């Protein structure tokens, strides 16, 4: 190798000697425009953390990686071209090391740039994460060194001399420093009306009304933008609409749904109680650490009264609403799957770590062992989950519900029964069982006598009996002995038996190892005084305490990142639900640490306070306008040189249509459509009388629409609602003709367009001018008047359309515009 290397040196130096003296641009800019693009295009595919590949042990996507090099030695030695293997490879100086493989050599101009770069010391602005991680940090020692498992630490706030006037908060300084490092500057502030629309959607999920706009502009006049904006933020955070918006964000993460999903999709008629709990918790700004504890172990908390007790129990619904296989091979298998789902959902939601990968083998990418996994299995297998599904032929897994106090006035959707009716049902069941036994005995006798037993007892009869018994059990579960309606919720309590779990080879119940694993938590997280699980407790409470320990490296970071994501459109860690090796690295690691520490210390886990800090920053206030230079440099806006634009969520689109049409009912509906329909297979929902075909049919806010797994209301399904079987910190945005058809033809939009037209007519009160109609419609939709060109486009429409419903069709078109469902 060595000797060969010297043969190419001369050649290469001969070939590329005329580069000296070129005026070198700023180091970073040179790297970004002349070096990085080629690394990305030609090398990363096989040599990057992102691609998950490090051929020859070489990673080229980090500064450390490129300098440490791979199996053959350093790829780049700053200043020393002849020792830099990267250059040897790309210049094809060495026949057995031609890179990129099987492709033309890179253009001479590019090679010259690389040479220039290496000779000038290979300045490399890439600071992300560690260097040589050609193998994932799966052992405890390297796992603990991985950034996400290290405690957040306070970093000095950057303070640039160039940034005297722009930054208004600490977070702005972090953002500015990164922009400056990359030769970029922040965008100007957004117009006040743009900002107003943005803050309304972001905090409450609704557009500002005309009155809101007038008030805001008046306030700016009176006290200036800063104070007026702070006042507006305060108002919105105090509004109940805030919990409906931010509670829904959490429901995405909590994989909330009102049915079991999977192959036998049965409804969960009490799931909505958990939904309402979450909305209330956000409105009451329950500190996030407390919120975690309530959801994982609310049943174990002391309550001062029945109402608080009911709230705590309802919170544990979090653990019971997951997707559930009702037809697993055995009850044991079902219980193992439920525990697995609880581990998976909670570790991803709170820690953005995929612990459940270790069910069958040690985690392939993170330092999570099978032992860690089964230590958590013990916790959840020592708990009992109440999901409440009635047994039937296609549901082998019956489940109870948790009883709540009947004296709290909580909504209930089933009728009480007369005590005699209860007695009768019980008698029916006894008789059914007796008859079945008799038939079985006769059939057994027939078998003995060599006769056909099916005359006495067939599979059809067995199935029929399961169905009949299930129906009786289902009815009896809804009332107490006296026939009073039970008030029930989904949730979790301590199990009858507290025990550790063995490790199951390959996750299969048939192959347990001899010894068991003590209940506990993943060891890659080290805490100073980690909670101990007492022998007679499941460990859920300790799990919650462990997660919310102030030293926990992940819980606060993960939540701060989730909040950030919703306000800045992309997380600092873009993979909001995976902070592990396979996830992405933070774009602003110091800023993330800062925010995590702020959440825990300064804000005492108050989510509202964190939101307030973020939206009152200068960074949030930026315009979203296009800037060519910045766009070419950072098209994804990872550096936050502007506010990213976003399409509204499904809920916002629907709510905004109701809002401008004047149809929105802000009252919280009692329960949900599913709660009022009862426990049944979701495949039968289209036949239920009270269920509209589009599963919508209300004018309440979208957060109250039914969420049945694999069977969503049209508007949610079409506009990229969260996949409710998965922890979803980030929704996709798609663009398909079905969405257009929804705007053009759906019952819902037809109704909104009609209301909208009536509203405009009322407002105009007989003024018969197209101009006025357009102005009023525009103001309602976009909070501004149409400009001349927009009016012209409108007039062209009215020229072609002049029937009695022309105004309605004009309004419908406005509701269908990109302007209506996008946010600047």
């Amino acid at each position, binding site marked *: 190798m060595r000797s060969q290397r010297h043969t190419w040196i001369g050649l290469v130096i001969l070939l590329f000697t005329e580069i000296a003296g070129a005026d070198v641009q700023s180091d970073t800019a040179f790297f970004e425009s002349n070096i990085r693009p080629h690394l990305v295009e030609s090398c990363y595919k096989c040599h990057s953390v992102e691609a998950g590949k490090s051929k020859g042990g070489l990673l080229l996507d980090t500064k450390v990686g490129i300098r440490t090099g791979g199996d053959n030695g350093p790829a780049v030695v700053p200043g020393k071209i002849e020792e830099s293997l990267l250059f040897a490879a790309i210049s094809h100086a060495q026949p057995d090391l031609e890179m990129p493989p099987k492709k033309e050599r890179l253009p001479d101009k590019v090679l010259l740039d690389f040479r220039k770069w290496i000779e000038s010391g290979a300045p490399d602005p*890439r600071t*992300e994460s560690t260097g040589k991680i050609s193998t994932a940090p799966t052992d405890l020692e390297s796992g603990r060194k991985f950034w996400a498992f290290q405690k957040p630490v306070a970093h000095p706030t950057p303070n640039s001399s160039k940034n005297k006037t722009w930054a208004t908060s600490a977070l702005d300084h972090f953002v500015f420093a990164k922009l400056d490092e990359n030769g970029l500057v922040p965008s100007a502030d957004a117009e006040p009306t743009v900002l107003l629309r943005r803050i309304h959607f972001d905090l409450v999920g609704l557009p500002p009304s005309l009155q809101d706009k007038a008030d805001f502009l008046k306030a700016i006049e009176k006290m200036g933008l800063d104070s007026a904006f702070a006042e507006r933020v305060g108002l919105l955070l105090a509004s109940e609409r805030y919990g409906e918006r931010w509670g829904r964000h959490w429901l995405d993460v909590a994989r909330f749904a009102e049915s079991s999903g999977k192959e036998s999709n049965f409804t969960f008629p009490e799931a909505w109680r958990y939904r309402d709990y979450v909305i209330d918790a956000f409105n009451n700004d329950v500190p996030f650490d407390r919120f975690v504890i309530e959801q994982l172990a609310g049943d174990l908390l002391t309550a001062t009264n029945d109402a608080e007790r009911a709230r705590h129990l309802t919170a544990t619904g979090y653990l019971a609403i997951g997707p559930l296989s009702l037809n697993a091979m055995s009850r044991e298998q079902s219980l193992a799957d439920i525990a697995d789902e609880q581990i998976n959902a909670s570790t991803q939601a709170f820690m953005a770590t995929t612990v459940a990968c270790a069910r069958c083998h040690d985690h392939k990418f993170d330092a999570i062992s099978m032992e860690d996994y089964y230590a958590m299995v013990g916790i959840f297998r020592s708990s009992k989950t109440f999901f409440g599904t009635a047994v039937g032929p296609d549901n082998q897994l019956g489940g109870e519900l948790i009883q709540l106090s009947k004296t709290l006035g909580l909504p209930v959707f089933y009728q009480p029964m007369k005590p005699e009716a209860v007695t009768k049902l019980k008698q029916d069941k006894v008789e059914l069982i007796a008859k079945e036994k008799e038939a079985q005995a006769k059939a057994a006798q027939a078998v003995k006598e060599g006769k056909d037993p099916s005359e006495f007892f067939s599979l059809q009869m067995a199935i029929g009996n399961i169905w009949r018994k299930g129906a009786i059990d289902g009815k009896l579960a809804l009332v107490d002995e006296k026939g009073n309606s039970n008030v029930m919720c989904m949730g979790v309590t301590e199990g009858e038996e507290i025990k550790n779990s063995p490790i199951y080879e390959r996750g299969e119940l048939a192959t347990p190892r001899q010894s068991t694993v003590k209940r506990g938590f993943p060891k890659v997280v080290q805490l100073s005084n980690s909670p101990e699980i007492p022998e007679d407790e499941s460990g859920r409470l300790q799990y919650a305490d462990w997660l919310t320990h102030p030293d926990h490296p992940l819980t606060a970071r993960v939540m701060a990142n989730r909040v950030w994501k919703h306000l800045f459109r992309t997380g600092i860690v873009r993979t909001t639900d995976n902070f592990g090796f396979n*996830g*992405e690295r933070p774009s602003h690691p110091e800023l993330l640490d800062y925010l995590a520490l702020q959440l825990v210390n300064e804000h005492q886990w108050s989510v509202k306070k964190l939101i307030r800090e973020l939206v009152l920053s200068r960074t949030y206030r930026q315009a979203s306008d296009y800037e060519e230079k910045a766009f070419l440099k950072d098209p994804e806006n990872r550096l936050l040189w502007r506010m990213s634009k976003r399409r509204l969520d499904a809920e916002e689109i629907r709510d905004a249509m109701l809002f401008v049409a004047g149809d929105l009912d802000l009252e919280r509906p009692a329960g949900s459509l599913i709660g009022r329909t009862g426990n049944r297979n979701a495949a039968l929902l289209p036949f239920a009388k009270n269920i509209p075909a589009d599963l919508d049919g209300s004018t309440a806010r979208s957060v109250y629409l039914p969420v049945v797994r694999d069977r969503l209301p049209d508007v949610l399904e079409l506009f990229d609602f969260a996949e409710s079987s998965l922890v979803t910190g980030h929704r996709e945005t798609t663009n398909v003709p079905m969405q*257009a058809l929804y705007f053009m033809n759906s019952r819902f939009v037809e109704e909104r367009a009609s209301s909208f037209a009536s509203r405009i007519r009322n407002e105009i009160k007989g003024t018969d001018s197209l101009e006025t109609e357009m102005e009023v419609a525009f103001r309602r939709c976009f909070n501004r008047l149409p400009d001349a060109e927009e009016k012209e*486009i409108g007039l062209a429409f009215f020229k*072609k*359309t002049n029937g009695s419903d022309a105004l309605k069709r004009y309004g419908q078109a406005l509701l269908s515009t*990109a302007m209506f469902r*996008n946010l600047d």
Partner: protein
Amino acid sequence: MSSGFSYLAFAGLAAEAAAKKSSKGLFVRQPHFPARAKRVIFLCMKGGPSHVDTFDYKPELQKRNGEPWRGGSARLLASAQEFKQHGESGLRISSLFPNLAKNHADDLCVINSMHTDLPSHPQAYTQLHTGSFQFVRPSLGAWSLYGLGSSNQNLPGFVTLSPPSDMGGANNYGSAFLPAIYQGAKIGGGQLPALFSALTGKTEEPGPPMKNIDNPNVSRETQRAQIDLIAGLDRRKLDSDHHNPEIEGAIQSFELAYRMQDEIPDILDLKSEPESIRKLYGIGNGGEGDRFAKQCLLARRLAESGVRFVEVTAPTSWDHHSLLNDNLAKSSAITDQPIAALLTDLKKRGMLNDTLVVWSGEFGRTPYAQGLGDGRDHNNKGYSMWMAGGGVKGGYNHGATDDFGYKAIEKPVHIHDLHATILHLLGLDHEKLTYNYAGRDFRLTDVYGNVVRDVLA
């Protein structure tokens, strides 16, 4: 799924390029080399049909019925089916598919050496459709459409008929990071499980086959004016934003939606088909078979109208853990006649030459019994699938499993190989059909896949 590649530069440029590509829309694109098939009809048999009871004849298994499997507690279970040879080729097809055997043995190209990575439904099902069970990736149909475009601008280029909502759900016809225009359009509501059909006396969910396809309150002229109004306002917004793929996509979506309103109802109307054709497929036979017959006929009509990729999910589950023989009989009775009819019909119209028909489940089943001894468990190590038409050999068996049908041992074909082969038949090089997403060129076959040249006609 936009995960993956944070600080690779130019991801946004990739998005911009994507928008440009999508603005070309669905127009026909040239394949990499002359195609053998112009379109695909994928007959998906969800649940994992038992290969040793259908297309993989194992005399050794028949002989050793009841013997312990590899010394364990499981017992070998011989097939109750008869495996006669059919056609000139002498292809063995079990007695479960009399119509197919009688009329099309010489058309089928059976791969007996399939294998996939995992023996669990959702993962294997997703891998069958997207190549990956781990990550959200574009589906086979989306890749095909991306590669070739579509000749009919008034229809979606990729249609899936009543797909299951579980088993990975919309991933199985999604476009993932490919522009959304390539994702499959779902036609037909969910299929009611048999149990509920019996209970309600109905086979399908109520409601139109496709939602929101029609608005009785508004004329086409008015709608046209609306679309122009929306596009006019959207273009202004797009101009001021400079770069906004969301808005660019929306303008196209409304145009396509407008045209779909006329085209789709025509195609969905099976009444225009002559009675002889309806009978051929078995429409009117009742039950699930009736539904599948309609779906197969609709698949032909869609293919005929220029849809590039049609998937039909048979309204039956092949997941026969118990009562194998009863259940197999039911599932095959539902599917045999319509599939045979589809092949006959395509042939008659001269379409079988350039239509690739694919029949496959997500995996096969074990040669040994499970449970009470009357069912078979999942088997990902070896199973069978077949193709017919567009460019494949007819009356041909490729590869083999061991003596019991447990593991593919001769010329094994992985899902990636199958995908590479299907793309090849469509004139696409699976290594060249790439999409640059966030700085990396992605392929349907990831870094794997070999075209199975033996099956090419």
